[in-house]
């Protein structure tokens, strides 16, 4: 044991006498430096959570209480606002529309995006670069710019106020980002794995399903979450392309309700807003890491 004892043999031989001279504490090493880190972090937390907290607080109050009881913690918390939101037919239909359109867009995006991204990542073919450019460049097109042209297209196609049209539009909106992210992920999968599968006698389709896709589950999750979020939160295009409760989604419904109720019913509005956010938060809490890293990997490249 002695080799790892406290004292190596050399330590005993030459232990220097320690001259005691001045010993001072660096000011910056202490509380000041710690404050320089923790103060911004505290500010970040307040900045992020502040609006949520106020909104939650208001949503648990009765309309009359909002002005009478401005404190953060309600004197008489009530679920009344939430009940009234859920009882609204507009909310229910918008929720259903959001679910249908959200899942529709995410499924269609993956169904169309995965083969395309795989082709771009692994195949050599004539026109690949041009097609890639064509598929990716639209990421730079702002959605506000598409409101009118798509509105006119919808009217022409008699597809105005249709959920299917919204799903198709959102898929078109999402594909560039999805293809971009997926190409990156697919290219990161070592080619040797596919070559090994090929040597082992797997067909191309089997290889995709048994080798490539299982390895890209984090990527698919990231893309799915991004797609769902985008469809769930989209406002501008819904504003332009829908008219009735048959197809309008939550953000538009929220906007209409807010314009209709004005300043009279803050609890109702905030409860509505929070209910639209809640499903995303629940999903997000489970896969926060994928979202953060997926966004980054997409952004930094």
């Amino acid at each position, binding site marked *: *044991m*002695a*080799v*790892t*004892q*406290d*004292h*190596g*043999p*050399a*330590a005993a*031989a*030459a*232990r*220097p006498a*320690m*001259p*005691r*001279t*001045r*010993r*001072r*504490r*660096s000011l*910056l*090493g202490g509380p000041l430096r710690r404050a320089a880190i923790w103060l911004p972090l505290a500010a970040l937390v307040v900045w992020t959570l502040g609006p949520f907290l106020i909104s939650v607080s208001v949503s648990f109050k009765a309309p009359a209480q909002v002005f009478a009881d401005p404190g953060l913690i309600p004197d008489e918390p009530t679920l009344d606002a939430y009940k009234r939101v859920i009882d609204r037919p507009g909310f229910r239909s918008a929720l259903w529309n959001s679910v249908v359109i959200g899942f529709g867009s995410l499924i269609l995006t993956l169904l169309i995006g995965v083969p395309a991204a795989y082709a771009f990542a692994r195949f050599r073919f004539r026109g690949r670069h041009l097609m890639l450019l064509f598929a990716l460049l639209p990421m730079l097109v702002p959605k506000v710019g598409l409101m009118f042209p798509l509105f006119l297209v919808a009217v022409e196609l008699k597809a105005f106020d249709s959920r299917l049209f919204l799903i198709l539009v959102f898929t078109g909106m999402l594909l560039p980002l999805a293809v971009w992210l997926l190409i990156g992920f697919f290219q990161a999968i070592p080619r040797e794995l596919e070559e090994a599968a090929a040597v082992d006698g797997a067909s191309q389709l089997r290889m995709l399903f048994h080798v490539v896709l299982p390895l890209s589950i984090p990527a698919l999750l990231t893309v799915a979450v991004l797609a769902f979020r985008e469809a769930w939160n989209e406002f501008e295009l819904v504003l332009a392309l829908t008219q009735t409760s048959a197809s309008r989604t939550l953000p538009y419904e929220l906007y209409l309700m807010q314009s209709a109720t004005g300043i009279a019913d803050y609890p109702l509005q905030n409860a509505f807003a929070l209910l639209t956010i809640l499903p995303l938060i629940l999903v997000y809490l489970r896969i926060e890491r994928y979202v953060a890293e997926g966004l980054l990997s997409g952004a930094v490249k």
Partner: protein
Amino acid sequence: MGEVTFHNVMKTYGAGTVAVNNLNLKIEEGEFIVLVGPSGCGKSTSLRMVAGLEEISSGEIAINGEVVNDLSPRERDIAMVFQSYALYPHMTVEQNMGFPLRMAKLPASEKSQRVSRAADILDITNLLGRYPRELSGGQRQRVAMGRAIVRSPRVFLMDEPLSNLDAKLRVQMRGEIAHLQRELKTTTIYVTHDQVEAMTLGDRVAVMYDGVLQQLAAPTDLYASPETVFVAGFIGSPPMNLCEARIEQGAHGLEVRFGDMSLTIDPACLRKYPGVEQSVGKDVVLGTRPECFFPADAETPEGQRIRAKVDLVELLGAEVLVYLESDAKTVTAKSIANPAAGDPQIRSRNGRSTSTVARITPRSPPRPGEVVDLRYETDSLHFFDLRTGHALR
């Protein structure tokens, strides 16, 4: 110029991981000292504690008698060369070298004067306008050195500065660093895992293992009289053969028996390892240097003669490494520290130990399976305690 003192320095991480264990070390003014050891031995951590990049858990580090534990790096007046060189990629060579002076708020004229003097010393004047990415590995290394020397610090700290270079360049830069340090006479602490660098560069070499300083000595002493089994097994290429052996009273004096071989211990060895005489009849660790084996001839006395079966032969060119079969058990620093950790033996095809390697220059290389006759220089035997791993002094 400065001297650096470590006084009972400890570094612990979290729950009980000890990186540096009670280090005591005094580095004299102008000395070139090399900290060497395998990765994870605490050498880099020790260096970083001098730099102020790592907090000292307990104990004190002093530069020129001033305890620097609580000083930030910038207050310590030291310069450091990093393994990756850490050249600022957005600055030219000139700006890189001038950065410490700029931080010290030196006037521009003096700054450029000192930078050009340093560039001159290192022969990189023609590179001053370039960016790091436009430089070769060796040039980057020089710039990193340049950034360290411009400010004439009290101490140079170098953290494996050559490990990113290819072998040929490494030898060249090694020479230049030695030359530069002799000229500047600045106290230098140099960390490496490469024993050749340690042996060629250091005025003294500190061998570390498992957070503990094993031995601090001049390179020649390190080779000639290792203090522990670890140092014995670390210095030298190939390293010293270490195996279990027994001291016995023979016809011509004390003998050491290992496996089915035995050698008579030269009196010079007994003077060096007086503890051997108290170990008669006991098991010890025997160290033999591969390069002290020679082909035996008719005049070779019996006490220096070894006869063994060859398991494996490696040709190195003029020399060959011959792995000898024996029943002697291999010993390592790890097997002493932790006997339960596993068997360090490398077995021959016959299942016997191959704990002994000889480096010889025979007329014709032996073949595996052949029995060879070798002579060992018995004044170069080394003895260590089987339980503590310390030399039997």
